């Protein structure tokens, strides 16, 4: 399934709980969640570890809006809204970790 996280990893616990709960599948970071995919963020260790079990995506327009598109962690796949739609249709269910 597709897990969607829209919260900054340093502000709230959504990413932590998502990663501890998810049984594989894919993770899409949107809105303030995209900060988790940026180099130097103290949450990158968790994200790198997660990459062993699930594919990680981040929404490019949200990265660009925040001036962070040029510091994306290796291994994170950037998508636009069309790619977001594809991720939703390719997975049988999705869970937004609000």
């Amino acid at each position: 399934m597709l897990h969607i996280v829209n919260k900054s990893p340093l502000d709230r616990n959504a990413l932590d709980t998502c990663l501890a709960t998810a049984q594989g599948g894919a993770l899409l970071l949107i809105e303030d969640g995209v900060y988790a995919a940026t180099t130097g963020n103290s949450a990158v260790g968790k994200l790198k570890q997660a990459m062993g079990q699930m594919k990680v995506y981040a929404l490019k327009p949200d990265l660009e809006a925040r001036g962070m598109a040029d510091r994306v962690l290796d291994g994170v796949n950037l998508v636009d809204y069309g790619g977001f739609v594809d991720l939703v249709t390719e997975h049988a269910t999705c869970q937004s970790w609000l």
Partner: protein
Amino acid sequence: MSEGQVKKFMYVNRKAPHGTIYALESLEVVLIAAAFDQDVSLAFMDDGVYQLKKGFNTKGIEVKNFQPTYRALDDYDINKLYVEQEALEARGLTQEDMCVPVEVLTRAEIGKLMETQDIVLSF
């Protein structure tokens, strides 16, 4: 209305009660869902486990106490309530602190259940 289809709906509750209205309005969705003869389960994770903490007394903050509604869920045949074990432990709570019968599962177990759902709704 339901076209005879039965889908598996899971409602994931991760927010504390009273500080925000999500707990109460999530419960309102679940009660309506019961009328649709779908397969309904509720997962309480993180601060969401506080929603079931026994003994709400809301007089002092002058809001309605919606906790009795959780006890009514069983009358609507909603009885698959899963509570996250790690969340209870981090909050000093146990199964005995819950106001209704629940099944305590680890995060990983809840994650596995989530994979079997058709629809996951999060509040």
